[in-house]
């Protein structure tokens, strides 16, 4: 026995030295394509290009012109409002999912996961049609006796609605794991001690679910800061946000210094938000392994006050109405939200098969003409083919790099592990638009702008977090003693990997590859900058068409994308280990 355990610790020690270097390719990738470009972009915004001296003109220009300050305030306000809407609407949905038996939840999850994987671009595009002046929603509202001249689109309301709609699935999926980790016996335990149903919900379930809510709030807010698709598509000029400003500065005015200054500002705001969040909630809530830390201070006091009020109010309401009514209201709310999540996805096929020469829902006639237009257009087909190739290569590269890193990280006990994990999450923390602009700036210098390679490099970077997380979960759940067992049974190193490791991680690897592929297939921001209007990807082609002239061809392309996404995502979800 002693011999065996000595050998055991020996091999573990050797592996520790072995495994961390496997994260190096990924870290180098991050350094070269994220930190270096972003740093360069920020640096040049402070430097006067001819003399090389420190120069703050662009910052002075930015803060003195009222428009930038207003845009910054806009960005903040929109992001905060979207965050609140997502949390308030998403929380009941997550509670609903958490309360289901496992098998039914797996089914119900599709209702959230499908909208999650359809890109914001597509979802917002659908709302342009559905919420149009004479669109179906306006007609329904008019039918219910509202004003006949309803302007649902192009305003603050539409932007908040569209953005919250795009991000709600993410909010739900972030809140759910914390809720599921709550011990199911705590509520019955509270009730045996005399707590009513609403008392035990407010005093036990709500406080324990808060780490997930805080994490979701952070994610949505940070993503919201860099979000530009919805304000551009569903907003009026009054809803202009930093992201749009950056596009204008970089793509139309070629003012990279001001673009860089805006990126600096956006990044600074993001990092400050994260720092403040960390101060109050701790980062552990985001990575999902929090042990429900107790909080004192302001947040704790506010929290317990809210809980007291919530418990009191819901007890009061419960005493007025029968419990069944409350449950019915809850269920109705849940299904309305789910319907709103799914509707835009389901609205594409009818729009695409329309015979009309403009987009309408519901369609008045049936034809295949828009599919023919889509399939016979060189521009659309070229974009589709490029997106397919880029997505596949991105999936492969991201899976290999992240796979090595995830293996290395899963097998290390080094303290650097946490830091390395955070490094791989960086592309999620740094707003996509900052990544896009900085890649635009750096890749232009080495001739990779407007090339497929450039787009692949950028997409691999932004696909890395999700691919990495899936692979890390896979490797973490793998029982490494199985390899030792195979070794004692006579398998050599390669046989251990081929016969034991690979078959068991296959599902996770396939899922990681497909999710990386999907991410690239639907990515707009990086393609917008790195493609530089020359190398069009499918989402970029759609973006241009939506901005210039909306035609039913878009709906045909959307149907194609949704079909691809649905099929791949179903395969990936089935393959993913739990």
């Amino acid at each position: 026995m002693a011999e065996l355990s000595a050998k055991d610790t020996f091999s573990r020690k050797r592996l520790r030295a072995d495994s961390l270097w496997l994260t190096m390719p990924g870290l180098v990738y991050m350094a070269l394509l994220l930190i270096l470009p972003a740093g360069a972009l920020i640096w040049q915004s402070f430097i006067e290009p001819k003399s090389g001296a420190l120069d703050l003109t662009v910052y002075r220009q930015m803060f003195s012109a009222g428009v930038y300050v207003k845009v910054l305030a806009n960005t903040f306000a929109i992001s905060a409002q979207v965050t609140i809407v997502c949390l308030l609407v998403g929380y009941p949905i997550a509670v609903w999912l958490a309360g289901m038996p496992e098998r039914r939840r797996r089914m119900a999850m599709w209702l959230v996961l499908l909208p999650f994987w359809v890109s914001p671009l597509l979802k917002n595009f659908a709302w342009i049609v559905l919420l149009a002046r004479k669109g179906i929603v306006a007609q329904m509202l008019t039918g219910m006796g509202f004003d006949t001249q309803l302007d649902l689109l192009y305003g603050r309301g539409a932007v908040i609605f569209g953005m919250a709609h795009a991000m709600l699935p993410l909010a739900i999926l972030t809140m759910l794991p914390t809720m599921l980790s709550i011990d199911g016996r705590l509520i019955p335990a509270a009730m045996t001690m005399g707590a009513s149903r609403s008392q035990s919900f407010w005093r036990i379930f709500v406080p324990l679910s808060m780490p997930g809510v805080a994490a979701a709030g952070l994610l949505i807010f940070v993503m919201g800061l860099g979000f530009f698709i919805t304000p551009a598509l569903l907003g009026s000029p009054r809803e202009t946000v930093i992201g749009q400003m950056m596009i204008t500065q970089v793509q139309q005015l070629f003012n990279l210094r001001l673009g860089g200054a805006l990126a600096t500002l956006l990044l600074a705001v993001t990092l400050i938000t994260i720092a403040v969040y960390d101060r109050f909630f701790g980062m552990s809530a985001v990575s999902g392994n929090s042990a429900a830390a107790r909080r004192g201070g302001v947040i704790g006091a506010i929290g317990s006050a809210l809980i007291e009020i919530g418990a009191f109010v819901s007890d009061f309401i419960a005493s007025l109405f029968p419990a069944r009514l409350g449950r019915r209201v809850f269920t109705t709310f849940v299904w309305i939200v789910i319907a709103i999540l799914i509707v835009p996805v389901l609205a594409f096929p009818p729009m695409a098969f329309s015979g009309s020469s403009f987009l309408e829902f519901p369609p008045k006639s049936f034809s295949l003409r828009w599919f023919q237009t889509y399939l016979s257009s060189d521009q659309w087909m070229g974009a589709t083919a490029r997106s397919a190739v880029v997505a596949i290569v991105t999936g492969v590269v991201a899976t290999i790099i992240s796979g090595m890193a995830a293996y290395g990280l899963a097998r290390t006990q080094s303290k650097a592990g946490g830091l390395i994990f955070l490094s791989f999450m960086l592309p999620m923390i740094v707003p996509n638009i900052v990544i896009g602009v900085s890649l635009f700036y750096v890749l232009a210098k080495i001739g990779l702008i407007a090339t497929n390679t450039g787009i692949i490099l950028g997409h691999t970077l932004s696909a890395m977090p999700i691919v990495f997380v899936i692979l890390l979960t896979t490797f973490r759940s793998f029982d490494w003693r199985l390899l030792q067992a195979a070794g004692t049974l006579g398998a050599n190193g390669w046989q251990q990997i081929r016969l034991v490791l690979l078959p068991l991680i296959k599902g996770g690897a396939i899922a990681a590859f497909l999710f990386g592929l999907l991410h690239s297939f639907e990515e707009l921001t990086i393609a917008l900058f790195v493609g530089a209007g020359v190398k069009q990807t499918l989402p970029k082609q759609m973006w241009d068409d939506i901005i210039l002239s909306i035609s039913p061809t878009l709906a045909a392309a959307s149907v194609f994308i949704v079909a691809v996404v649905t099929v791949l995502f179903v395969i990936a979800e089935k393959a993913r280990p739990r």
Partner: protein
Amino acid sequence: MRNASDPITTKGTTFDMSAASANTPEIKLQVNGLAKLYGQTTALDHVDLEVRTGELLTLLGPSGSGKTTLLQLICGLQEPTSGTVIIDGKDQTHAPVNKRDIGVVFQNYALFPHMTVAENVGFALKMRRLPKAVIDAKVANALETVGLAHAASRSPSQLSGGQQQRVALARCLVYDPAIILMDEPLGALDAKLREAMQIEIKRIHRETGATIIFVTHDQQEALALSDRICLMNDGKIAQLGTPRQMYDEPQNLFVADFIGISSIIRGTVRAGALETAIGTLPIAGEGPADGTKGAIVVRPEVITLGEGFCEGRVRETVYGGSELRVIIDAGKQEIIARAPAQAGDVAVGSMVRFGWAPDTARFLADKG
């Protein structure tokens, strides 16, 4: 067996149960014809049970025997298909969990991770809207009883398994519920701690006079703790009695097999003795009618080795510290006997004679 009129020893200031028990009926809990069906499967089959005030009754049985279902029906976490649950003379069959005045110690304690030990213990009192000063005093008192006064402001995750167990117990004791239900509360503890907690529970039970229903699948635990044991099998009560009755006078083969170790030798009754594969065995007292099928049940400690009316080959010996267990093959029949550990000279593979005094074994007829 203690009953309600016995004086209850209380150490220091504990719980004022004696005053309450003076005017409570002797029967604390009455379960009549309680049944629970899940679709076609019967989890609980019309069970009748009475629990006396102040007693510690264990629900014992293999998994799937219905003991946990019975517990959940008593505390109201499930609705019965039929039957009634009467607590303190009041029909509580359909009362919601939070109105039943029961306390539950859950399997893995179900302590609230976001509250301190004191907040956990005080939760039920807070739900009953007691003034804060009263809550504080009662919580301190309860923590004192379980010996955790020093840990009041800690979080449950900072405590060891045994300490968490005590907090769960204190959380029930503090609001003095009519009945305390414990669902395999010692299952997660290691053997040593388990034994210590058993003694602890016995002490707290004695000091507080609480009525406790204790669910376990461990017959040793049941024998050690209980005033009475209710052994369940297939959703029915197999036997209800004191630990001694269960061990010495099992009423059917299931009970004999489940409680303690026994050798069960099957056969058919002929002329007041049992004809079995290992010979005709004597039946004590007046024998059952000829042709009755059944078995002789013999406990290991009554079997004498070296002499007797049977013979077999020693298959295995198991050393257990204070004793040596000897497993004998008599034909296809397995016999488990016990020898003093010092004996030491029982060789595996050797033939050995064995027997027992007829009145130390029990004949039990097959069911039906």
